[in-house]
């Protein structure tokens, strides 16, 4: 007892001949179906190259088109020929011309001999499959499909829509439950002959001729009527990509294919010389009788499909123009933005670096240059501190900084003086932690040696920019962790907010702040704000800042009383 192969070929006939020869010389009869569109010249060349082998025969040729009945008709007539000519065949294996046997024939025949009444055919009901093309599953069996999906898509879609609207439904023959599955099967003589010799075969054939993609459902459905034991899986390893096209195996998949322990793989690139020479070599094969294990390959392929559909979070590939707002994660890691802190505290970045295990930059978006931590001129990934380069694409600059320092949290200072182009981006990024002391930008202005008119103009400009930023941070689209204090609020009790922010940055080191950052001299700031007001510029973002700050100032300078226990 042995297994017989039916091969459906249309291209790369030399490879098909090589595989057919391999099977035939190992003792398995082969019936080859060659697409009727293959030229007479190529067909006869194939015939000549295999003429020395008795067990290879050619079946009646059909013109095969994807998704049509012709594929089933070709398989039927080849199966009949196989069953008739080769009495010794117990299992019939349907393969394609681009299939490659991965294990010696003896292992397959042993495997099948141990399961003499089992049919290997993937066969599941329509409710259980998630892979159907075009959202058409059960409707394959109840609608009519006179138009080609590939060539006449518009007509195809419209006709389907029309039938849906008029609620047209074909009758499914009695006793039949539609099943779907991979078209590459391995059936026993009993089952296959029962299908082919059924007195009602005319009824079924007539019905399936009008079903869409019958090669995925004809045998899969009818097997269920006769089989005693169905293993609903294909012995052929096939993978489909994101678009439902079969994956192609190349030379570099050799180890992977070997480890899969599958019997046959599809589809193999015809010029993958190493795969063909390795797997068709005599003596190839494992000594142990391993169960086919396509799961390993599944893992690899699902990983690549995932990367393709989702990308790597925060890595904007140089070689890929990203789909706007379809990125999987805007940035790759959490980061913190401190707005206004460097104006209120002296050497705030130095203080912060002591308390958090993070890289603390100065004003990355300062107008003069990007102030990288430690005054560096260049950062990971060859980012320079040039403001021109940064401002050419500030968003790419930010995502690059975050991506290139994976594993280390990045913190940077911000103020209305800096480049504001990223404000929407950071506000809608769940990785961002944005802490704002509004109005702090006015502190350096209050000590500036400049004509008051100039200062007032500058104050108006910065306030406008800050208001715009605050407006963004208060919008309903915000995904970042945002905290906003006015400067008046913040100096009331600076330690508590600082502790909260720092706990959030490094939650595990529940370290208490022992030293407050040094606040700048606030004396005269209240008066400065009053002067602005007197000159006709209304300060809106400072909160309710008292006119005389002298008394409170002296107490905050010591810091201690504001420690949180």
């Amino acid at each position, binding site marked *: 007892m042995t297994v017989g192969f039916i091969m459906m070929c249309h291209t790369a006939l030399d490879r098909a001949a090589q595989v057919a020869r391999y099977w035939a010389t190992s003792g398995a009869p082969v019936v080859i179906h060659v697409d009727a569109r293959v030229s007479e010249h190529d067909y006869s060349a194939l015939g000549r190259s295999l003429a020395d082998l008795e067990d290879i025969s050619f079946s009646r040729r059909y013109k095969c088109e994807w998704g049509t009945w012709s594929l089933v008709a070709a398989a039927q007539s080849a199966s009949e020929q196989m069953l008739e000519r080769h009495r010794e065949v117990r299992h019939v294996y349907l393969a394609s011309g681009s299939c490659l046997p991965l294990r010696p024939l003896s292992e397959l025949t042993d495997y099948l001999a141990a399961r003499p009444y089992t049919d290997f055919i993937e066969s599941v009901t329509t409710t259980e499959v998630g892979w159907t093309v075009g959202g058409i599953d059960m409707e394959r069996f109840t609608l009519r499909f006179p138009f080609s999906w590939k060539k006449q898509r518009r007509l195809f879609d419209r006709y389907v829509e029309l039938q849906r609207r008029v609620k047209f439904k074909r009758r499914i023959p009695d006793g039949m439950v539609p099943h779907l599955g991979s078209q590459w099967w391995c059936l026993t003589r009993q089952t296959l002959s029962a299908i082919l010799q059924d007195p009602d075969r005319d009824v079924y054939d007539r019905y399936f001729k009008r079903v869409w993609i019958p090669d995925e459902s004809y045998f899969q459905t009818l097997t269920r009527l006769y089989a005693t034991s169905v293993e609903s899986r294909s012995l052929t390893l096939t993978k489909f990509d994101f678009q439902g096209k079969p994956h192609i195996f190349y030379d570099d998949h050799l180890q992977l294919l070997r480890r899969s322990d599958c019997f046959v793989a599809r589809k193999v690139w015809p*010029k993958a010389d190493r795969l063909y020479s390795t797997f068709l070599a005599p003596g190839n094969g494992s000594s142990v009788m391993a169960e086919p294990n396509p799961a390993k390959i599944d893992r690899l392929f699902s990983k690549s499909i995932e990367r393709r559909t989702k990308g790597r979070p925060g890595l904007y590939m140089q070689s890929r123009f990203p789909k706007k707002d379809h990125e999987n994660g805007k940035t790759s890691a959490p980061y913190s933005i401190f707005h206004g802190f460097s104006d209120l505290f002296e050497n705030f970045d130095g203080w912060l670096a002591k308390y958090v295990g993070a890289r603390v930059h100065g004003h990355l978006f300062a107008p003069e240059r990007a102030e990288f931590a430690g005054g560096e001129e260049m950062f990971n990934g060859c980012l320079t501190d040039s403001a021109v380069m940064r401002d*050419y694409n500030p968003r*790419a600059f930010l995502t690059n900084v975050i991506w290139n320092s994976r594993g280390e949290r990045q913190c940077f200072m911000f103020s209305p003086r800096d480049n504001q182009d990223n404000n929407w981006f950071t506000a809608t990024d769940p990785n961002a932690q944005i802490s704002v002391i509004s109005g702090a930008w006015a502190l350096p202005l209050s000590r500036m040696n400049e004509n008051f008119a100039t200062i007032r103009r500058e104050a108006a400009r910065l306030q406008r920019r800050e208001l715009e930023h605050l407006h963004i941070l208060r919008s309903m689209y915000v995904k970042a962790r945002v905290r906003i204090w006015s400067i008046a609020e913040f100096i009331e009790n600076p330690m508590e907010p600082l502790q909260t922010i720092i706990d959030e940055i490094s939650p595990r080191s529940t370290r208490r702040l022992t030293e407050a950052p040094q606040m700048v001299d606030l004396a005269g700031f209240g008066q400065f704000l009053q002067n602005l007001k007197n000159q006709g510029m209304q300060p809106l973002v400072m909160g309710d800042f008292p006119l005389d700050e002298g008394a409170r100032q002296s107490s905050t300078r010591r810091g201690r009383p504001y420690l949180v226990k």
Partner: protein
Amino acid sequence: MSEDTGWRAAYRLRLKRRQLLWRALRSRHGLRARLNQTGQIARGDILLFATMRNEAQRLPYFLQHYRQLGVRHFLIVENDSTDDTVELLRTQPDVSLWSTQRSYREARFGMDWLNWLLMCYGRGHWCVTVDADELLVYPDCEARPLPALTDWLDARGAPAMAAMMLDMYPDGPLSSARSTTGDDPTQALPLFDTQGYTWEYQPRFGNISIRGGPRKRVFFTERPDHAPHLHKVPLVKWNWRYAYVSSTHVVLPRTLNRGFDARGGLPTGALLHSKFLDGALQRAREEKERGEHFTHRDRYNAYYDAISGDPDLSCDHSARYTGPDCLVDHGVMSRGDWT
């Protein structure tokens, strides 16, 4: 937007393409066939088209690299060479050679000549069009020759593959990049930038413009918008009505420029650019003198001066090239759906 996609714009591009084809047709008068072995070309062969001048040093490795990838025939226009380039090419079994003394600049940097050869010999073939200092790599290219890629693209119905130019530079000042004829240039120029590239969609030709790399980082800090473009379309299944517009950055019709769009799921490649191989300093001086390169000559004078100053492009954060896999890991090229 309607301006860009409307029939008016489409028609303008059509006229533009016809004009380019007409130029290509005219440019044939300047070409003299030195060695025509195109009779060898068989159906389905992958062809390579290039213009070169004084490339005797890079050529042996160039030919070796592309033969290994599966290029079957080289069609080369040699422009006014004074070194061994011509002798070297004439002794190759798979090279057809044309010579011209005409101006490179007036032939739109050689593109008219190549458009003509592509029109004559390229139709129906997958064609690689590159410069002599560009080596094409793509994901897994060590295990999968070009026909594996082109078969896949054919099955996908994709007419072209895009690649990003990757400027390679030495570990030290430019003059330290020593290499002998026949060496892999990435030995002398092992470093590249992993980040700092920016994209822009350019609606007119429907392409994605990429800028960045060491040249932008060092020479164009003040004018990033003048930095050289890095996007290219070096691999196209040619039709006689196609035409390259500016270098191989952009090609018409517009559909051929979509290679970098993530929605297409196509793999992208990289062109390892060995501009800074030794001789680059002298070449920079020469090129400035000849004024045959680039559209905006004056913009590049400062650039050529900077190169002549023998700068050091490397920094602590430069990445080292170890093979196509490392480019995939850094996101410089992408597998797309091709696994």
